[in-house]
């Protein structure tokens, strides 16, 4: 079995920064990512796609910094393993103090790829593990959201940045959060007609959060550049509106949009039908937490942090010694914070392995820690002011599919919650309990998409805090692995 000092899972901004920090301290580092190249969702694609198009806004400070990390990766001793999924994370107390074992599934194209043809199962042991597995988008489901042509903002960005393809010819963007802006600009840059950008929240709600902006001037400048680009491309930016239905027989043909009242409920008499062939939606992010859950790390629920996230100490160590979390996987705060956290986690891992002593670590991390706090504050502000307003759940009608994999509707979920005997069973209605009553979370995505949606529904239906719903229990493999690869793989 291969072994390393530090295994870094995820080669986005946080993972790159963590890997380089640890490698610069002389540690053997293995950097693993499912994508074929480093950069993650944030830096994915050839930067030439941006630079070729003069209408694109210039890179932000964070993007420049991320690209610099990418550039220096090749000059270091970091071992990279791309097209590799970490499907299991376990630990053993032997050899002392604790050794982590990562179950890997390598699926390079010549082996058939992730379509499930083959690939190799291998194991890697590591003295410390840094999870930098990023975040996934949240959706508020509405009728028609499963139609071809409806996708997340992130999926549209991946198409645009990695393949240079626009999601459609006439595109509508709806959701909440700053990510809608670059997506609209990129789509317009690729020649798509962006009919509108609908932001569910309203600027008036943002005012109280002004102070957190202090010090995060690069983020403000980035936003202003995108706003200018939007105006230049004549893309309407509408606030307090969202999509309530997607229409179409085989694929998307039109979207119905509506204004939202002060609590976020759609006003039916303001509905308007817009014909589009692509609809991109995104309502913020939730941390990818499966591996930390498998490892038994403890979690804390904080909406301002993106929901459930690992409990971390100052050095970004989880409750499991030697297991660190950096970047969005530990809470949603953007790329600048992610890179700072990568550095802190890299230092933390070095300290855990005895490469640095506490005093050296403290000296190394002072500036980063302060800047991280500021960046986190900005992230918390964004998460708070762009949180989907509670009334928005009204767009999820009884017939709307909640669990895409198993096609379970909101109506079926509500019936299951009632049949569960609530309130007689007091708090016994968790996501896992719901999974035994319906098939939610039992499909290939294992509840990644529907988990946060169901938690919100449970809280709303039962009137109890979302923490009562818990998280879906995670078991390996965290993503599908073909039987042939398991059957013929290396033994742990």
């Amino acid at each position, binding site marked *: 079995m291969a072994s390393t000092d530090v295994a870094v899972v995820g080669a986005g901004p946080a993972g790159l920064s963590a890997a380089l920090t640890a490698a610069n301290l002389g540690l053997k580092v293995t950097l693993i990512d499912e994508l074929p190249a480093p950069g993650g969702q944030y830096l994915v694609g050839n930067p030439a796609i941006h630079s070729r198009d003069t209408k694109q806004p210039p890179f932000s400070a964070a993007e420049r910094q991320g690209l610099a990390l990418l550039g220096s990766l090749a000059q270091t001793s970091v071992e990279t393993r791309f097209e590799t999924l970490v499907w299991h994370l376990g630990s053993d107390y032997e050899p002392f103090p604790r050794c982590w074992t990562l179950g890997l599934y390598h699926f390079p194209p010549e082996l058939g790829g992730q379509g499930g*043809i083959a690939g190799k199962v291998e194991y890697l042991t590591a003295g410390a593990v840094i999870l930098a597995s990023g975040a996934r988008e949240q959706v508020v489901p509405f009728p028609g959201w499963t139609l071809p042509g409806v996708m997340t903002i992130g999926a549209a960005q991946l198409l645009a940045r990695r393949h240079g393809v626009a999601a459609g010819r006439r595109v509508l963007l709806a959701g909440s959060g700053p990510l809608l802006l670059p997506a609209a600009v990129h789509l317009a840059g690729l020649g798509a007609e962006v009919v509108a950008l609908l932001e569910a929240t309203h600027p008036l709600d943002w005012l109280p959060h002004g102070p957190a902006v202090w010090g995060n001037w690069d983020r403000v400048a980035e936003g202003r550049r995108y706003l200018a680009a939007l105006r230049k491309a004549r893309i309407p930016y509408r606030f307090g509106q969202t999509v309530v239905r997607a229409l179409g027989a085989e694929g998307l043909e039109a979207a119905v949009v509506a204004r939202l009242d002060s609590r976020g409920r759609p006003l039916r008499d303001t509905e308007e039908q817009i014909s589009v062939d692509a609809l991109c939606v995104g309502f913020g992010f939730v941390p990818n937490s499966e591996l930390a859950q498998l490892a038994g790390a403890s979690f804390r629920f904080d909406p301002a942090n993106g929901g459930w996230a690992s409990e971390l100490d100052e050095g970004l160590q989880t409750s499991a010694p030697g297991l660190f979390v950096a970047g969005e996987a530990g809470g949603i705060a953007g790329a600048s914070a992610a890179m700072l956290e990568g550095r802190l986690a890299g230092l933390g891992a070095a300290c855990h392995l005895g490469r640095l002593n506490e005093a050296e670590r403290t000296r190394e991390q002072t500036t980063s820690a302060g800047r991280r706090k500021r960046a986190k504050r900005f992230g918390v502000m964004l998460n708070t002011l762009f949180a989907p307003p509670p009334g928005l759940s009204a767009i999820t009608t009884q017939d709307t599919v909640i669990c895409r994999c198993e096609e379970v509707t909101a109506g079926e979920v509500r019936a299951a919650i009632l049949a569960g005997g609530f309130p007689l*069973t007091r708090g016994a209605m968790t996501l896992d309990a719901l999974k035994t009553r319906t098939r939610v979370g039992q499909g290939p995505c294992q509840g990644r998409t529907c988990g946060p949606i169901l938690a919100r529904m449970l809280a709303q239906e039962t009137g109890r805090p979302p923490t009562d719903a818990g998280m879906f229990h995670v078991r390996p493999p965290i993503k599908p692995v073909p039987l042939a690869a398991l059957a013929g793989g290396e033994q742990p």
Partner: protein
Amino acid sequence: MSERGDVVIIGGGIVGAACAYYLGGADVPALVLERDYPASGTSRACDGLILYSDKLSEAELALARASATLWADLAASLDADLEYNRRGTVVLYETEEGLAAGRRKAAELQLAGVRAEVLDPAGLRALEPNLAPDLAGGVYYPDEAQVDARAATLAMLDAARAMGAVLRGNSEVTGIRLDASGRVCAVTTRDGDVPCRTVVCAAGVWSNEIVRTAGVELPVKPRKGHILVTARAPGLIAHPLLEGSYAASVKSSAEGVQVALVAEMTASDTLLLGSSREFLGYDRTVSPAVVQAIAARAVRFLPGLAQRSIIRSYAGLRPWSPDHLPLVGPVDSVPGLYLAAGHEGAGIGLAPVTGQILAGWIVRDEAPPLAEAVRPGRFPSLMGER
């Protein structure tokens, strides 16, 4: 409503649900106290096979056949889809020696009145065209069946509630209290005592800790098992399949891990793949090595699975008992205490007959049919004056 708790059932798994259901049918509405939520323990981490071809004794076979009949009735009468199917199962043999043993086993069962049909390779292929071509043969047991264990647990609990039973989730029982005469007077929960005259401990592998507080030691041990869930594979198999060595792995008391293939299709076209058996205490974490071993057995028998993915796996704890029979009925040394535990891997199959026997004991206070073989008092630690 028995909120006062005349009869308390500890455990909302398949066995507790069956006890509540049959007690409800006898006009004894019980209070079911479940630690987490219904079917949150072993009942959600198992397959749903209703077998008798793996039974090791005459007594076990009689219980299994009685229970199989009850399952057919439940599937017809309960107001829910249990995903019950009686399409038979096929036991697979890799070698001629294995098949010879399978043939002997089939002959024994036929003598006892069980339908069985020995299959040569051509016969096996006719029933299951996607099996590996080099198998020696198999035995088809046309009367064996399957249910969805979780759906069945919930359906029985819902039916029991409709007959007056009360279910409390998130309600862990930590002990049993006896009065001065040594009779059950209450169960202790984190939210206080629940007074009751009768307690049924149906807490599976977690029963030991609970009944110990009443001075009772059970010979039940957790025996860990893994199940793998595949992506949808419609039509790959037509019957649940069991590797011939499955019965031997059940019988064995070896400490190390034993793997024998069990493959079962579900209503949503996924396959459940098992099985492993090992004694590892209460550890329920999934072992990657065991996942790989089961995957290897599955690909060996079903080469078409090689291209499919495992979408999740889970591990559960079977309540093993030394003679492979459950402990169902009164604990003679503690008036008011009843057991319904120790079913090992047969909890789903034997749940209805367990519920019926238990209800019979409580309602009539005398041994119902089939009850003797499973009486807890057959173990020395559970003997005592009544």
